[in-house]
C-alpha cells in the first residue's frame, strides 16, 4: 500500500509541538456534540436503564472518533517549503497534498487569537486566485515559522501577471 502522507519522509516538517494539545482539543470537541442529543433523547424516551444502552455506546464511539481525529490532525499535517513554493500534506484516512507555487500566491495572512498568542503560535493563510485554493489555512505554526514562511512566499512586485 502506498501512503501519500508518509510520516517518515525527512524532507517534510511537522507542526509545532506546542500546537499539539490545542489542535487536539479543537479537533475533539465537534465530535462530542452528538453526545448531547444521544443522551437526552434515549434517556427521556426509553424506560428505565434501556436509555443507557444507547447513550453509552454512542458516547464511547464519539469519544473514540474524536480522540483519533484530534490526534491525527496534528500528527498528519506536514509541510515543506522548497524553491518552487509551499506544499502541505494533510489527513490520515483521506490524504491530500496541496502545492501552491510562489508565483501563484496573491497575498498571505497571519492570524493569532488569544489561545494561540499565549503559546507563541500562529495560523497562516495563503491566498491564491484559485477556486478551491483561494485561501489555504493552516494553524499550528510557531509565530516565527509563520513569519518566515510569509517572507519566503510573499509575491515579488515585478512578477508576471499572466496567470490572470
Amino acid at each position: 500500500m502506498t501512503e501519500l502522507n508518509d510520516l517518515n519522509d525527512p524532507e517534510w516538517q511537522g507542526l509545532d509541538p506546542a500546537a499539539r494539545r490545542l489542535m487536539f482539543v479543537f479537533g475533539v470537541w465537534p465530535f462530542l456534540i452528538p453526545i448531547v442529543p444521544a443522551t437526552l433523547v434515549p434517556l427521556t424516551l426509553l424506560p428505565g436503564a434501556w436509555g443507557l444502552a444507547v447513550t453509552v455506546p454512542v458516547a464511547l464511539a464519539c469519544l473514540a472518533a474524536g480522540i483519533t481525529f484530534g490526534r491525527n490532525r496534528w500528527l498528519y499535517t506536514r509541510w515543506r517549503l522548497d524553491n518552487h513554493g509551499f506544499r502541505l500534506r494533510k489527513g490520515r484516512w483521506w490524504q491530500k497534498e496541496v502545492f501552491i507555487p510562489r508565483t501563484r500566491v496573491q497575498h498571505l495572512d497571519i492570524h493569532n487569537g488569544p489561545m494561540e498568542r499565549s503559546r507563541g503560535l500562529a495560523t497562516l493563510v495563503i491566498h491564491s486566485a484559485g477556486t478551491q485554493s483561494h485561501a489555504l489555512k493552516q494553524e499550528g505554526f510557531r509565530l516565527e515559522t509563520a513569519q518566515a514562511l510569509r517572507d519566503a512566499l510573499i509575491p515579488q512586485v515585478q512578477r508576471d501577471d499572466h496567470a490572470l
Partner: protein
Amino acid sequence: MTMPSDADTPNLESAELRLHPLSWLFELFNVLKQFIVPLLVLLVGGRGNQYELWGLAGIGIMVPVAVARYFTFRYRIGNDRVVIRSGLLHKTVRDIAFTRVQNVTLHQSLLHRLMDVAEVRLETGGGEKEEGRMRVLGFAAAQQLQRTIRSHETLPGTAMATDSGHDEDVLLQLSTRELIKHGLISNKGMLIVAAGFGGLMQMNWELPQRAMEQAGRWLWDHSGDLAQNSMVSYVMGAASLLLVAFVLLRIFSIVQALLHYHGFTLSGNQHRLSIQRGLLNRFNGSLPRTRIQAWTVRQGWLQRRFQRYGLSVDAAAGKTKSEALDSNWQLAPIADAESVTRIAEHVLPPGSWPIIEWNPLHPKAWQREFKKPALLLLPATALCVYAAGPYGLLLLLGIPWLYLKSKLWAKHAGYSFNGALFAVREGWIGKHWRFAETAKVQAAYIKQSPFDRRYGMASVFLDTVNAGNFEPPLAVRYLPVQEAQALQREISAIIAR
C-alpha cells in the same frame, strides 16, 4: 500620451455629454420592473387590495426621481478615460481609464430596440458590480463609445500591432437550422414551462388549478370508454399524453433557443472574443482572451447523434454577478468538431485541440466505479424482497448494467498532458472534456481516499480561477499512485516557473 484617435476626435476631451433624452423612461422602467407583476395582477386579475394601490403612489414619486437622474448624469470621453458624473444630492465622479476596462457590453431589450438605444455597461472586473452603467445611450453613440474604448486595448509593447489586431475573424455563426437542432437537444423549454406556470399562478392562481381539474374531469368522464377497451387503450392514452408533453417541451426549447441565440456570432481578434446574440433582447459583449481559464466541451447522447458539441469557458471576472461578466461563457452552444477546433486554436496554440493521445486510468479504475453502486444495490434489493417478495430480486438485474456502464466509462476516461495543456475526459452516455493551459493552473492537488489506497490509486486535481460549480473539475481520478505523484510533480514544476 498621444493616441492615434486624437486626430479624429479633437474636441471630445472638453465635451460633457448627456444620456439619451429618453433614458428617464428606461430608468423608470427599471424601477417598475419590480412592481410589474403586482401591477398586472391589479389590472388583469382585478384582485388588488389597498396595499397594492399604495405601490402605485410610490410610482408617482419614482417619475421625478428618474427624470432628475437623467438631468444629473453626465459623462465625458477623454483621450484615455471616461469620466461619469452622477447624483443629485450625493454626487459621484467616477473616472474609468480605458485600459482598465475589461469589457464593454451593449444590452438591448425589445423596448431599447424600438427606441434605437442601448444600455452600456463598463466593467473593470474589480468589484461586485460593473463600474459604469449608462442607461441609456443612443445606439450609434453606444457603438461609438464601445469602439473608442476597444481601440485603446493594447497589450504592452504591441502598440503598433493594433491595426491588424482589430480585424475580427468570425469563429462561429449559428444558422436557424443549427439553433433548431440546439433547441431539440437542450432542455431549456422546461424553464419556459416553469416560468409560464409561475406567471399564471401570479396572475390568477386558480387558473392552473382549474386547468388541472378540467383535465382530470375529462379523464374521469372518458375513463368508462377507456376501461371498456382494456389495458391497451390505457397505455395508448398515457403514451400519447407523454408524447404531447414531449413535443410541446421540444417546441418550447426550440423557441427558447431561437429567442436567446438568434444571430449568434462569435468573433475574435488578438485581444478578445466577442459574442452577439438574441432576437428580442440583443446582447453584445466580449471577453478578453487572457481572462479565459478552463474550457469545457460537452456532448450528450443527442448531440452525438447530430455530431455536435457544446463549448464553454470559465472566465476570471472578479466577483461580478452581472450577465456580461459572467464567470461562465458559453462560447458555442452548438458547434461541430471543426468549429470547436477553430475556436480553441484561436486562443490556444495550434494543434492543442482535439487531443489525439489520451493516457488511460489505472487498469482497475472500472472496479471503483462499479463496486460502490453495486454494493449499495444489495441492501436495496433486500429491502425490496422484504417489501414486495421475490419480485424484489429483479433489482439485481442492475448489476450487469452497472458492470457494463463502468467498463465503458473507464474506456472513455483518460487524461492528457503535454506540458502546455492539461486535459481530462470522462463520461459514457454524456461525455465531457475539460482542459486548461498549465499556465492558468493556480494550485496542484493530489488526493487519496482509503479506497484509493487499497487499489494503489490517487487522483490529481488542478485548481483554476473561477472554476464553475456546474463544470466538471479539472481532475483525473483513479490513477496509479506513482503516476499521479509524478504528474503532480511535473505540473508543479511548470507552474512554479
